[in-house]
C-alpha cells in the first residue's frame, strides 16, 4: 500500500510542478491546490497505513493508527486552505487590475 501511495504521490507532484511551470495564473493556483494534497498524503503515508483502528479510544481497538501525523495533516490542511483562498483572491485582483492572467505579461512594472 505504501509503495502504491508513494507512486501516486509522485504523480501528484509531477502534475503540480507541470502546472506551476505554465503561463496561466489559474493553473499555478490549481497546481498549488494539488501539491498540498500530495504533501498531506505523503505525511500520512510515511507513518504507515492501516495499522489498527481509528485513533478514538472509545472504539477499544487492539492498536490504533498513529494519531500524530493526523494532527499534523489537520493543521496543514487548514493552513493550505488559508493560503489557497488568499492566492485565489489575489489572482482575481491581479486579473481585474492588469486584465491578463498570463505570467509572461505580468513582468516588471512601469518604473523599472
Amino acid at each position, binding site marked *: *500500500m*505504501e*509503495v502504491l501511495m508513494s507512486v501516486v504521490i509522485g504523480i501528484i507532484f509531477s502534475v503540480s*510542478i507541470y502546472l506551476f511551470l505554465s503561463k496561466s495564473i489559474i493553473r499555478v493556483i490549481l497546481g498549488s491546490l494539488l501539491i498540498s494534497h500530495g504533501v*498531506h498524503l505523503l505525511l*500520512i503515508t510515511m507513518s504507515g497505513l492501516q495499522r489498527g483502528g481509528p485513533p478514538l479510544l472509545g472504539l477499544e481497538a487492539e492498536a490504533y493508527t498513529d494519531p500524530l501525523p493526523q494532527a499534523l495533516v489537520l493543521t496543514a490542511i*487548514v*493552513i493550505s486552505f*488559508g493560503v489557497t483562498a*488568499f492566492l485565489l483572491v489575489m489572482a482575481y485582483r491581479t486579473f481585474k487590475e492588469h486584465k491578463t492572467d498570463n505570467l509572461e505579461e505580468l513582468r516588471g512594472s512601469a518604473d523599472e
Partner: protein
Amino acid sequence: MTVLHWAIISPFLLAILVPFLYKYGRKIHTGWFVLLLPLALFIYFLTFLPRSSAGEVVLRTVPWVPSLGINFDLYIDGLSLLFALLITGIGTLVILYSVYYLSKTKEKLNNFYVYLLLFMGAMLGVVLSDNIIVLYVFWEITSVSSALLISYWYQREKSIYGAQKSMYITVFGGLSMLGGFSLLYTMTGTFSIREIIANIDLVTTSSLFLPAMILILFGAFTKSAQFPFHIWLPDAMEAPTPVSAYLHSATMVKAGIYLVARFTPVFGGSPEWFWIVSLTGIVTLIWGSVSAVRQKDLKSILAFSTVSQLGMIMSLLGVGSVAYYFYDGDNALYTTAILAAVFHLINHATFKGSLFMTAGIIDHETGTRDIRQLGGLMTIMPITATVSFIGLASMAGLPPFNGFLSKELFFTAMVNVTEYGIFSVETWGFILPVLAWVASIFTFLYCTILFVKTFTGRFQPEKLSVKHVHEAPFGMLVSPAILGLLVVIFGLFPNVLAYTFIEPAMQAILPGIMEPGQQFKVHIYHWHGFNLELWMTIGVIVLGAILFITMKKWSQSRFYRKERDIFNYVYDSGYDGLIKGSQLITRVQMTGRLRDYFVYMCAFIVFLIIYTMIRYDAFSINTANVSPIEPFMWFVVIAFVVSIISVPFINNRMTAVVMTGVAGYLVALMFTIFRAPDLALTQLLVETVSVILFMLVFYHLPELRKEKKKPAFKLVNLIISVAFGVMITLVSLSAFAFGSETNFTSISQYFIENSKVLAGGYNIVNVILVDFRGLDTMLEILVLAIAAIGVVSLIKLRFKGSEDV
C-alpha cells in the same frame, strides 16, 4: 593608556576639534593650530632617540580585545622610530607648506586637516603597532584617508577616478594582507610581531609559509606602488600638492616598505622572498624610471620617479634579506643592501618631499605644471630653482648630495648579489645590477629633463595663465628649503645618520644576526677609490647626458608621446569588464519570469537530492513492512490519478475546477480508508469551501486557454516535472524503508496511553491538537485570521487613480 598611546590617538582627537577651530577661528588659518601637534609629536619621538640608538626597545601595552589576543601594543625600535620621525617631521613641514599653499577663504580647510590628521594618526599607528590586527586597522585607515585626500577637490572627475582607483588597489592589498596575517596567526597562535619572530620555527616549517608570505607581500606591493600595482600613484596626483608630497612620496607609500622590512625577520632567508621582493623591486625601478621620462606633467614625473625609487628600496630589502643566510662571520658584504635601503629611505623622503613642494610652488606661481609650457624660471624663481636643483641632483645620484651615497651603496649591494653563491644567483643574479644600472640612466635622464625644461631655456609668458610670475612667498619656501638643507647635510655628513638612525634600524630589520650586545658598525664614505660603483655612476652620467642631448630625435617617437601606462588600460578594461560581465550574468539569470526561477529551483532540488542519494547509496525499497492493498483501493487510486492527470489538459475552467474538486473528495475518501475520520471531515469541508470559492470568483476569472508553447519548452517542463515526481517517489520509498529498518518507535504510544489519563479525551487527534500541541493550533488560527484579513483588504482597499503604491 600611556603617553605613547595618547601620542598616537592625539591626531584623531585633534581631528575632532578641527571643524570647531575652523568655524570659530576664522581669522587664523586652521593649519596653524594643526601645525603644533606634529611638531610636539616630533619632539616627543626625538626623546626616544638616545634609547633607540643604544639598542634598547620600548614596549607599551594596553588591552583592547584581550580574549582574542588583540591588544593595542606599541613597540619602538630603530625602524619604527625612524618612520615615526619621518611622519611627524615631514608632517610638520607639509602642514606649514599647506598653510601657504591652500587659500584660507577659497578652500574647505576643515575637511583637509581632518583627513590629514586622520592619516597622520593612522600612519603612526601602522609603524608603531606590534599587534598585526591593530596594524591592519590603522593600515586601512590610511587607505581611506588617502582616498579622501585624493578626492579633496571632489568636483573634479579625475580626482574621483584617482581616489577610487587608489582605494580599490590598496584595499585589495590590505585585505589580502589580512589573510596573510590570519595565516600567521594559525601558524603561531599570536598576533604579536615580536612573538611571531620569537617563534620563527613554527612559521618557516609550516606549509602555510608561502601563502602567508605572498598574501602579505600583496599588501606591501599595492601600498608601495610596486609593479604592476603602481598605476594608482600617478592618478593620485590629482590631490593637492601638500598631500602628494606627504602621502605619495614620503610616508604612505613607504608603509609597504615598512611592512617588508618588518617581516624580513619572519620570511627573509627563503629564496622565494629574495627573488619575489628583489625582482619586483628592480622591475618597478626600471618601469618607473622609463615611464617617468615620458611624462610631461611635473607631478606625473615625480610620481613615476617615486614608483621607481620605491622599487629601488624594495629591491634592496629583498637583496638584503639574504643576510639571514649568513648568520655569523663577516656580515658587511650581506648587510650593505639593508644599510642602503634604510639610508635611501631617509634620503628619498627628504629630496622627494622638497621636489613635490617646489613643483607645487611652480604650479601655484605659473598656473601650469606642463613642462612644455614652462621654461626659463631660473632667474625669476632663484630659490625654488636652487632647492629643485639640490633635490634633482640628489635623486639623479650626483655627488656631493645624499642620493649619490645611497646610489653608490645600491650599486655595491647589487654587484655583491652575484657573489652570494646561493638561490641560483650565479645564473640569474647578473640581471639585478644590469637592470639597476639601466634604470639609473633613465633616472638621471628624467632628473635632467625636469630641471632643464623647467628652469632653463626661454621664458614663455604667453603660454601661462598667470600675468606676473614671481618667486613664491617666504612661508611657502621654508619647508622645501629645510628639506633641501637636510639633503645637503646628509650628503656632506652622512655619518650623523649612521649612529642615530641607520644602525638601530638595521638592528630592527635584522635581529639575531649580531651577537647580543654587539651593534652594526656603519660608516659611509664619500670616496672609496676608483671601484666598479664609481665607474657605473660615471657611465650613468655620460649615457644619461647623451640621451638628453639626442632627446629631439627620440621625442618624436611613439614611445615618448604615449604618456599613459599600459597597465591603466588593463585596469580600466578589467573594471569595465567586471561591471559589464556582472550585468550580463544578472540579465541572463534574472529574467523576471516566474517559470524560469521555478525551473532553477526544481532543477537544483532534483539534482542535489538525486546526487546525494547516488553518492551515499541511500536508495532502498523495503517491502517487508508494507500493508496489503485492498482490491477496492485500486478503483480509488485509478480514479484519483485520472482526475489529477486530466487537470493540465483541460481548457475549460469549469471542468478544471470540478476535476480538482473530485480529486479533493477522493483524498477525503482515502483519509477515511486510512482510518483518519477527523481528516476526512476536514478535507471534505475544506474542499467544498475551496470549490465554492472558486465558483465565487469564477465569473471574474478568465477562460483557460490552450497553452501555446514550443515543443522544446514543453519538453523541458515535462522532464523537470517528471523528474521531480520520480524524486519524491524515490525519497518517499527510501525514507519508508529506512523507517522500517531502524528500531525507533513512534512517540505516539504516549499520546494513545495518556490521552484519557492526562487530558480526559477519547479523540486522540483532537487532544493532540488542543492539548498536547495546542500552540500549533493557536498559530494556525492566526494564519487563518491573517488570510481572512488579507482577503478582505485585497478586495476592499483600492488606490484611486492618482495614488500609487
